[in-house]
């Protein structure tokens, strides 16, 4: 029976995975586009130096009159533009990686809370977390490349910058490349070990006739959540907040977490509805979708709460080293900055407020897509101002990076779905979950 289920799932999954392959090909095709973009920037650079030589009035990008030294400015702009494809890759890689990590946290919460409604969705959640390993390895490679000065996303990694910057010097016992990479390796190894054992226990549990694996998973999940909330916070400081090494926010870890969590739940809901619409997951009913949509609604509001808490305190106190963070975002990133608040807060609130709408699949799907787009923009807003400054644009590198990592993500997730039966049939709560109704 299990073999039958696997075969069945495999049969249907070969279709979407091939579509994903196509997508990936397009994406990798456009990854060439990235190369082109870099070439373009080179020409851009030539133009920039040209402008310097002729002492012509600075181009529109140079609008800031305060910049006396045009040469330095052109170099600055060049660095920003060289950063752009890297930053685009970084944003997309982080976005999909955090979905997998958030899904793992959600999954662990279900275990630790001994939730009765969700076990029918466990295999979907496990599959979404399957991207954790490749995603985190990609992240680590990107960070290591930064560490070895292949790209310049993190300015504190640049010894010249540090030499002239007392504030970064003061932080250099924490912000230095070896320690940074060691920390990253610890987080990544930790998460993946927990993920590996949780998945293994869940699969083994179906084969045996006792609950020892379930109990192990329960303890593992509790341990993971403790490990996760510490490492997730530190990860968000390291990987995102340190892009602006002068700026700090004490609730940044929570803020990234809420973004991660809502995206992950949205992806779980979307994958569930997709599988359901294809006729798999026979035990998933409207009430499960309703509950996932409630989470999407609630965590969206939670995200807004944190966003606003961070924003309002900094806005009100108006302390120079803090407020610059928002000044750049409001002045240079006005549309994505406020657009993202609308997408991530107003849209889900109005769409998912009504209890009945949470049960209408296409409604949830539509809202989910908007939420995912909004949270991509959120990450974009966290990373881009520090790395490319004013020269932002969502163009070929950004979209192709999303397509590439999105394709890889879907391929791995759906591939993982084929590896196990879609029902964790011996979970102690599976009966309750199957009959779950609200």
């Amino acid at each position: 029976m299990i073999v039958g289920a696997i075969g069945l799932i495999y049969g249907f999954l070969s279709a979407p995975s091939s579509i994903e392959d196509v997508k990936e090909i397009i994406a990798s095709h456009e990854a060439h586009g990235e190369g082109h973009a870099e070439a373009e920037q080179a020409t851009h650079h030539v133009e920039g130096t040209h402008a310097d030589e002729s002492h012509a009035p600075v181009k529109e990008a140079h609008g800031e009159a305060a910049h006396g030294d045009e040469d330095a400015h052109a170099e600055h702009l060049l660095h920003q533009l060289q950063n752009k494809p890297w930053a685009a890759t970084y944003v997309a890689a982080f976005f999909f990686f955090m979905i997998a990590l958030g899904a793992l946290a959600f999954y662990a919460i279900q275990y630790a809370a001994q939730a009765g409604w969700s076990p029918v969705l466990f295999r979907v959640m496990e599959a979404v977390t399957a991207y954790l390993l490749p995603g985190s390895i990609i992240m680590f490679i990107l960070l290591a490349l930064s560490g070895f000065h292949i790209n310049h996303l993190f300015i504190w990694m640049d010894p010249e910058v540090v030499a002239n910057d007392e504030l970064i010097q003061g932080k250099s016992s924490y912000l230095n490349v070896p320690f940074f990479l060691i920390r990253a390796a610890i987080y990544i190894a930790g998460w993946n070990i927990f993920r590996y054992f949780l998945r293994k226990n869940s699969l083994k549990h179906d084969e045996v006739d006792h609950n020892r694996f379930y109990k192990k998973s329960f303890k593992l999940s509790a341990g993971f959540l403790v490990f996760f909330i510490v490492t997730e916070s530190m990860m968000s400081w390291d990987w995102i907040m340190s892009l602006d090494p002068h700026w700090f926010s004490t609730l940044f870890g929570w803020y990234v977490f809420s973004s991660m969590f809502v995206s992950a739940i949205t992806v779980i809901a979307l994958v569930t509805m997709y599988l359901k619409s294809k006729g798999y997951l026979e035990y998933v009913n409207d009430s499960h979708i309703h509950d996932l949509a409630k989470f999407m609604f609630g965590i969206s509001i939670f995200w807004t709460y944190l966003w606003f808490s961070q924003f309002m305190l900094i806005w009100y106190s108006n302390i120079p080293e803090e407020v610059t963070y928002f000044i750049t975002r409001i002045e240079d990133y006005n549309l994505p900055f406020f657009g993202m608040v609308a997408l991530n807060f107003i849209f889900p609130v109005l769409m998912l407020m009504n209890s009945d709408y949470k049960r209408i699949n296409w409604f949830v799907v539509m809202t989910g897509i908007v939420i995912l787009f909004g949270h991509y923009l959120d990450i974009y807003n966290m990373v881009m101002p520090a790395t490319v400054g004013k020269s932002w644009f969502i163009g070929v590198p950004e979209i192709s990076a999303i397509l590439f990592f999105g394709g890889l993500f879907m391929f791995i997730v759906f591939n993982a779905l084929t590896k196990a039966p879609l029902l964790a049939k011996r979970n102690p709560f599976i009966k309750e979950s199957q009959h779950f109704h609200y």
Partner: protein
Amino acid sequence: MSSKVIHAIYTDDDLLMQAVKQTREANYHIEEVYTPFPVHGLDKAMGLAPTRLAITSFLYGLVGLSVAISMMNFIMIQDWPQDIGGKPSFSFLENLPAFVPIMFELTVFFAAHLMVITFYMRSKLWPFKQAENPDVRTTDDHFLMEVSVGKHNVKDMSKFLSDTGALEVNLINK
């Protein structure tokens, strides 16, 4: 006109749910059910129309939001602009972040309080009101289903209700 009702008393909520379903299937009219605690899904089983309280709550929230906006605009901007923390308040939009917590609080305040008041009015509750509860045991551990007799045969009905698992079946002249 005296209307006769039958009070059927149950001791278990699952039993009650089942009895409610059976009674409705047998085309008897349930007047009311009294329970010591909210029974999940009872409203659906009784065929009550879905509550519209959520809609009123949303509207009250909008009222609260507009009250907050106009209040803050009048107090802080029009009537008495002050310079707070280097942020002179001459424009509503520029001072908006400071007003958001108040807007949020008043939205919640209006939605919650007006919703509770609406609920009291709709269920005809007010201070010092005499309880309509027909049997005090329904405040402890018994469940009571009130079925109107109408033109049905009382004997058949009581037999039917006893068969649904009722502990007691009483005929009451209202």
